[in-house]
Structure formats: structure tokens, C-alpha cells
């Protein structure tokens, strides 16, 4: 059975930059912690007054197709995956589906289309589904995309936080973006996905909610950030160790002959820089306890959180796109993407890169 791969990638970042300082300056009640120091986030992109989720996703899709070997009319699946579904700037849409608007605007007339919602794991849930649709022979290719105007929750937090401890503080970390990937079946054994695993540990499903505010027009995010962190650090290392041990033979197939690393780069969900650095170390300390994989060395961490913040459902793809653009990632590199999203969905996506143009 052939493997699926990323055939092309597109990204759209709104032009407006808002610094962490600018955001905090607007608040009457400041956090007890130093936001920039604790998260590493200096800047995030903000939608303009006329931009919405649909436009961000559409711009990313167009960028993706400009680098793709496929024309819109050849796309067989369109999967929209955002948390926010703003269209006509401020209308949060439920029907018709966002994927249908995108499909018709692109002219992808023959595509199967639907919307997925799975919090910050949205894009990778789309990838997981499309991989199965392709391997089952239902479609030959597809577009997974998300346009995320998530800074609406930051606007609400700025207005509503009145206590130095508040469930809305995590809302200050988010940034807007659009990303899209075309996937198809790999034409050679050396490129594409080796591992796609996902599970939901629903015990903690109620630790983070995104929904309209009860004080103001607009949406808010309420996260028990401390609990989320505490529960996650207990589980991500054993989960990933289990996956790495189970698929050791697949991972070691592409061991880098220069660095001796079985995995070149890891892209975690972009929440906070220190958390990501500690998380990768935790995982590989855990790995050392397992005989079969105890020699696995630490992969390089890819993070763009300093510039873009937590872009929610697009975060792994904002990083992938910019690491390609900055020529950090090269054809032949192996990458482990680790989704970690409210629900709580945790997964492992391991692939070898081909030639992706940006």
C-alpha cells in the first residue's frame, strides 16, 4: 500500500503584528507572570478589520495550489478544519459548510467536502482522515485547510480579565493564520508518512472551552491552563515513547547518517517555548528507559511561537511552512509532528519530507 505525503503547502499570515507588550498595555488587570518570558511569544499576527476565517483559509489554499502540481479542478477532497468559522467578517457560520464555500471559490467542483472540528488538532485530524480516504482508494488526493481568526478570544480576554488569576489568560497567547496542504500518494518509497496515530484522552475534555462570552459580543476561551499542563506532562512522554518503541523499525529506516538521529525535527503544538523545550527533553528521558529505543537522540525542536504565537489548529503547518521557507528543513529530513489539543487529543505524525516548494 502506498504512503500518503504532503504534495504542497500554503500559508497566509495577516500583516498586522501585535506585540505581547501592546496586548498587555490594553489590559486593566495585568497577569502576575511575565507573558513574554513564560511563553516566549513576542509577536502574533492579528486579522485586519475586514479579514475572517474564510478569507485566511482561502488565501492559504490559493498559495498552496500555486506550488502544487494539481489544478483546483483535479482536487478530490476538501476538508476544512478550523475552530473559528467566521465569514462575512463577524458571522460565525454553521451551515452551509465552510469547505463548500472554499470548494466553490477555488473551482474544485468534483471534490468530496466536509468540515472537521477538533480544537487545535483540526488540521492534523484532517490529515488523519484524508490519509485513510486515500489508502482506502476513495480519493487520490485532497486539500486540508484551516483559516483561524482566533484572536477574537484575545480581544475578549483583554476586555474581561479583572483578576490576576483568570481562565482567560491563555487567550493572550493566540495568533491568526491560514494554512493549507495538498496531499496525495507518494511516488517513491523514500517520501511520505510512516506513522499516523491519534487518540483522545477524554478524562480532561472539560479543561478548555471555546464559546461565546456572557459579558460581551464575541467568543472567549476558558482554559484551566495549570491543570492542562500538569495532566499533559504526565501523559505525553509515555504516549510518545510507546509509539516510538512500537514503530522503531519504521523510524530507524531513515536514520540520518551524519547526525545519527532517527528523527531530525520535532514540531509540537506551539503553546509556550519553555514548555516545548522541556517537553521534548522529558520525552527523550522517558525513551532512555526503554531498551529498544534507548539510543534515540534528541531531535531538533522547531518553534515559531516567538513570532506567531499559538495559531491553534494551524500551528504545526505554520511551523512547517516557515521552516521550509527559512531553509531549515530540507528534502529527506524526517519530522515528527505532535498534536496536543483540547479534548484532549494526542497524536504522533512521522514523515519523511520530499521536495516541498514554498
Amino acid at each position, binding site marked *: 500500500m502506498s504512503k500518503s505525503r504532503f504534495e504542497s503547502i500554503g500559508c497566509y499570515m495577516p500583516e498586522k503584528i501585535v506585540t505581547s507588550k501592546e496586548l498587555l498595555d490594553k489590559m486593566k488587570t495585568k497577569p502576575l507572570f511575565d507573558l513574554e518570558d513564560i511563553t516566549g511569544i513576542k509577536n502574533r499576527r492579528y486579522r485586519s478589520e475586514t479579514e475572517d476565517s474564510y478569507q485566511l483559509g482561502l488565501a492559504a489554499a490559493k498559495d498552496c495550489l500555486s506550488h502544487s502540481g494539481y489544478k483546483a479542478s483535479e482536487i478530490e477532497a476538501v476538508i476544512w478544519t478550523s475552530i*473559528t468559522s467566521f465569514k*462575512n467578517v*463577524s*458571522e*460565525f*457560520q*454553521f*451551515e*452551509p*459548510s465552510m*469547505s*463548500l464555500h472554499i*470548494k*466553490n471559490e477555488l473551482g474544485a*467542483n468534483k471534490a*468530496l*467536502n*466536509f*468540515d*472537521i*472540528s*477538533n*480544537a487545535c*488538532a483540526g488540521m492534523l*485530524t484532517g490529515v488523519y*482522515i484524508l490519509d*485513510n*480516504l486515500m*489508502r*482506502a*482508494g*476513495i480519493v487520490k488526493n485532497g486539500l486540508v485547510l484551516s483559516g483561524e481568526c482566533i484572536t*477574537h478570544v484575545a480581544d475578549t480576554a483583554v476586555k474581561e480579565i479583572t483578576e490576576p488569576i483568570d481562565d482567560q489568560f491563555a487567550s493572550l497567547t493566540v495568533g491568526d493564520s491560514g494554512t493549507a496542504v495538498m496531499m496525495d500518494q507518494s511516488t517513491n518509497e523514500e517520501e511520505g508518512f510512516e506513522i499516523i496515530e*491519534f*487518540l*483522545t*484522552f*477524554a*478524562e480532561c*475534555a*472539560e479543561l*478548555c*472551552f*471555546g*464559546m*461565546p462570552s*456572557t*459579558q*460581551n*459580543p*464575541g*467568543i472567549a476561551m476558558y482554559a484551566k491552563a495549570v491543570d492542562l499542563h500538569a495532566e499533559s506532562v*504526565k*501523559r505525553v512522554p*509515555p504516549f510518545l515513547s*510507546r509509539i516510538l518503541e512500537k514503530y522503531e523499525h519504521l523510524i530507524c529506516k531513515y536514520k540520518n547518517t551524519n547526525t545519527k538521529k532517527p528523527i531530525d525535527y520535532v514540531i509540537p503544538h506551539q503553546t509556550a517555548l519553555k514548555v516545548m523545550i522541556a517537553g521534548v527533553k522529558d520525552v527523550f528521558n522517558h525513551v532512555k528507559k526503554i531498551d529498544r529505543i534507548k539510543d534515540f537522540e534528541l531531535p531538533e525542536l522547531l518553534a515559531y511561537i516567538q513570532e506567531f504565537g499559538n495559531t491553534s489548529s494551524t500551528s504545526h503547518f505554520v511551523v512547517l511552512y516557515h521552516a521550509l521557507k527559512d531553509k531549515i528543513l530540507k528534502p529527506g529530513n524526517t519530522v515528527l509532528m505532535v498534536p496536543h489539543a*483540547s*479534548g*484532549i*487529543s494526542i497524536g504522533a505524525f512521522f514523515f519523511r519530507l520530499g521536495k516541498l516548494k514554498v
Partner: protein
Amino acid sequence: MGTFIRKTAIYTEKNPFSSVECSRKTAELCIAVAGIEKKDIDLIINTGIYREQNIAEPAMATLIQKSMGVNLDPILNFEGNSTFSFDLNNGAGGVLYAIQVADAMLRTGKIKNALIVSNDVHPSTKAVPHFPFSQVGSAMFLEHSNNGDGFSKFIFKSSNFTSKDFYTYVSMLDSGDQGRNIMNVKMSKEYIDHLLEFTVQTAGEFIVKYADNGSAVQHIICTMPNHTFGLDLARRLKQPDRHVINTNGDYGDPHTSSLPVTYHIAHDKGLLKKGDKILFIGAGAGLTCACGLYCV
């Protein structure tokens, strides 16, 4: 060889109320009659669109998994099982898209079964006059079958220009502090007529291609945006009236639950015989029409 509906359940009491709670009750009924233990559920897909408080995150399916207590902590309490949950939406016919996704995952061996749940409630969880949908919980437990039964063919079509005939939204500018209690529903007078035309065209193509122009079909199960839609559709497709299983009179329009609810009632009434062919038609906003051919 196809994806087979092992069991279904519906829940019609005490509505409207929490969508999560409605799905939990329905799903628990479904797996109880299927004789399935919770820990053996591999995948939960929620296709319901309207939910309490307009929750956007996390996926409703994860809240349903939590409330059912399905493999809650498959990492620290790992006993060999885990479950993956997400929401999939595409209007009233969304369940057919979810079945296609589950079908692909059953074929690749990624999962052994899937639980698809749905219901639609006004975000205020109150009875609201302009809200056109009735809350009926539905759950379908799907497995792979090698006996020639189950779903064999699907078709998914949508209009090339997105129709403004039916759309729903919450405006974040003028919702004030009521964003959790509002749903704007815009439906043109022509919506049902336009939807019928589009559905006749799509389902017509489908039966020519896959169902001997309809002569191979014994039952039609379709979404019912009004009480005559099913009969109007059958007549336009030149199918006998008696093939249409009509539940609109009993439950109004259960929207994303329509197809599983109607299947469940038909099964309960003993209308479905082994080997019968069912034409599933999910039509809705967009305009969108999905068809699936199912062998009982």
C-alpha cells in the same frame, strides 16, 4: 464487502436539553443493544451541528466520550484500547459523509468499529419558535462486513455556486452578551423547491449508475426538511410512494439525525428484510446532496 450498521438507537424524550447528554443517552442505548463494551469503541464521530451554548471547542465528540466514560485515560491506564473522537459536519446529510470516513478507516484497518452520534438543539436549550429542527438523539454502531451487505456505493454532490437559500450563523457584532443563546436561521421561500430539484438531479444520476434506475431499491430513506419532501422526491424519481419511509409527521425535522432516526424506525417496524436495498439520500444547505446504497 462494506460498512454495516450493526445497531442503531434513538432518543426522543425530554427535549430540548444538552446535546452532549442527549448523545450520551442515545449512544449508551445503542452499544447496549449491540452488546458492545464501552472500552471496545474505536472511533466516535459527532455529526450534530447545533449544541448548547454554541460550544466551538473542544469537539462535542470528546465531551460525549468523556460523559460516556469511554477509555478516558488510555495512556496512564493503558489496557490495549483507545478511542479517537472528532466532529464532522456537512449539513443535514453529514452522517453519510461520516459513514464514508468510517468506511475508509474500516477498510484500511485503522479501526474495527465506529460510533456515529448526532442531535441538534437550539443553543439556549430551550424551545425556540423559529428554530426549525427537533431534537432527536441518534446513534449508529458501524462495523465492516464481508457478507455482501452494508454500504456499497456513495455519491457526494454540491451546487457549484454556494446557495444563500439556507444559512445559519451567530453574528458576533450584535449578539451582545447573548452569544450562547442565539442562532440566526435564514431560509428562503424557494429553499425546499431548489433543494428538491438538486436532489432529484443527484439521486437520479445515482440510481441510473448504481441501482438499475431504482428497480433494485426497496426503500428510500431521506432527510425530510418538510413532510412532503420524501414523497415529492420519490415521485420525481419515478419510485413508488410505498418505498419512502416518512418520519417527519412523528418527529418533525431531526436534521442531522434524520437518516439514522428513519432507519431505526424502519428497522423497528420490521420493514427491512435481509437483502433489501435502501437508498439513503441526505440533502441540505449548500446545496448539498449525498447518496448511499445499503444492502440490509
